[in-house]
């Protein structure tokens, strides 16, 4: 990254205010001053596009959701009737489904991603680091719909034959594995989400671990710690905030992921905690029902789902960013397109 320190403007201020004698020289400098101001204004305009975009998204969602907000109030969040014919809408099943599938994804993805990050920064031989990092990041380049396709025709048959039977044999008595596994289910959605968020968590965690000063490691090693003990007692605690940030960033991705989940989760308006049963997510509901929404209230209810999803992901992402910045200040970690 930059080595001239964060927070400093890139132009040294003194440069433009050099005392220069002679009127013609001053004239040209004044001219330059005006064009400089114009240049700065143009760039500022482009930069302002981002906050503007953010406010516009929020405003559009809010205004479009207003009829549903007025009609159902906060009970929209915890009632579970979704009946377009009776014009009654409650988003509880999809909110629960979103949380459960994302939670399952995090549960599977975090050990994998942290394993990759620790391996790449602490244990891998140098020649292996770049290729493995590259391969894991390639996972992030696979389009969501391709994950969906693979999930439908490869992952679900695999789960049906190789994963669900042994799982049921061992843990079949728990409430999480009740019912018959038809394929499209919370389990399938959660597993595909896990594969999809591994590269994000791994890439950000890796950069967080790289930002941990070498002196931390060396101090632990000098005290007689093994490499693993140094990682556990010095490196991980130092980067803890950033690692939690990385995980929360992955959670944000999982909450809003649409296509692959829509194709795999089963899309059923029901609250259940069995992993084998179909479920629904907020993003999937919008993807499935938006084009069939015939009445204004139906549209409005879907916009309210969008509003809830947007607000939740913004809050989650903001928390993640703040945590990551605490370890690696101002760096664009993880925001680079992988």
């Amino acid at each position, binding site marked *: 990254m930059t080595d001239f320190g964060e927070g400093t403007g890139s132009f040294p201020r003194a440069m433009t205010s050099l005392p220069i004698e002679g009127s013609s020289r001053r004239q040209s400098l004044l001219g330059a001053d005006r064009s400089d101001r114009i240049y700065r204004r143009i760039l500022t305009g482009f930069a302002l596009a981002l906050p503007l*975009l953010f406010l516009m998204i929020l405003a559009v969602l809010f205004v479009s959701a207003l009829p549903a907000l007025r009609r159902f109030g906060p009970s929209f969040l915890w009632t579970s009737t979704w009946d377009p014919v009776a014009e009654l809408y409650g988003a509880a099943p999809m909110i629960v489904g979103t949380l459960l599938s994302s939670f399952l994804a995090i549960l599977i993805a975090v050990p994998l991603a942290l394993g990759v990050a620790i391996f790449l920064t602490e244990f891998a031989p140098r020649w292996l680091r770049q290729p493995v990092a*590259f391969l894991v990041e390639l996972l992030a380049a*696979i389009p969501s719909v391709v994950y969906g396709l693979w999930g439908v025709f490869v992952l679900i048959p695999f789960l049906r034959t190789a994963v669900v039977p042994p799982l049921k044999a061992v843990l079949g008595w728990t409430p999480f594995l009740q019912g018959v596994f038809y394929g499209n289910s919370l389990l399938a959605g959660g597993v595909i989400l896990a594969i999809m968020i591994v590269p994000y968590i791994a890439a950000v965690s890796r950069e967080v671990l790289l930002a941990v000063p070498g002196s931390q490691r060396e101090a632990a090693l000098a005290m007689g710690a093994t490499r693993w003990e140094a990682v556990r007692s010095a490196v991980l605690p130092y980067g803890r905030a950033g690692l939690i940030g990385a995980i929360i960033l992955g959670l944000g991705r999982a909450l809003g992921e649409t296509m692959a989940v829509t194709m795999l989760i089963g899309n059923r308006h029901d609250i259940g905690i069995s992993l084998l049963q179909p479920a629904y997510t907020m993003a999937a509901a919008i993807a499935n029902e938006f084009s069939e929404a015939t009445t204004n209230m139906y549209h409005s209810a879907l916009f309210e789902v969008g509003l809830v999803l947007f607000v939740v992901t913004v809050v989650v992402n903001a928390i993640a960013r703040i945590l990551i910045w605490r370890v690696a200040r101002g760096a664009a970690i993880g925001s*680079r397109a992988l």
Partner: protein
Amino acid sequence: MTALVVALSFIAVLALVLILGDLVLKGASSIDWAFFTRSPVPAGQTGGGVANAIVGTGIVVGLAALIGVPIGVGAGMYLAEYGSGKLGFIVRFIADVLNGTPSIVIGIVAWTFIVRPTHRFSALAGSVALAILMIPMLARTTEEMVRLVPHSLREAALALGYPRWRTSLKVVARTALTGIVTGCLVGIARVAGETAPLLFTALGNLNFSFSVTQPMQTLSLQIYVYATGPFEEWHRLAWASALVLMGLVLMISLTARWVTRQRYGSGS
């Protein structure tokens, strides 16, 4: 414990190998000349291709780049050149937060802005949605690339009496140009695979269409429809389309990565 992290990394890489392997195994056999040159045939018949979807992807993504690249790169230049103040902090933070916004939400926002007032699904609406996705990403990569330009270069230009705007454009931006262009390419590759924001905007189209005010097919929409449809023939075409889309995305990302490495070395 070393064995554990090695095993975990192995599993992650294995997932990639499996997915790419399946794409090639199930997709490659369906790819022939007709696949690239013909439009889809009616459901139930065999044969046909995805020429319209390939052209559509090009148009929708190209238009998105036309809208998104200037704004994204401009915002990134602001962040790198003047971004040390309060506005810089806000813009940087919002860019990072918008980067994680679900693309389906952007889709319904673009629907509200363009499809609803014009009463028509259109490629243009899809492009606007993709451009909105692209902007925060490009702003941050541009900023990063511009910040890599050595400070001494700036100072040299300023010392020669160059005004700041010329220094910024002719020296700084020019030096970072390769980085900025590759950043744009990676951003384009990423939105080229997007489906969710196109569902209610570009919509999809079974026929050839070159009009940006009409619905348009893209590879991603085609894969979604074919994968979730009931016909064996469709599934075959879905795998082939997925292989083509993946190839496209990979080609752009790999080129970008290779160019960056040539330019900036293989540091982290």
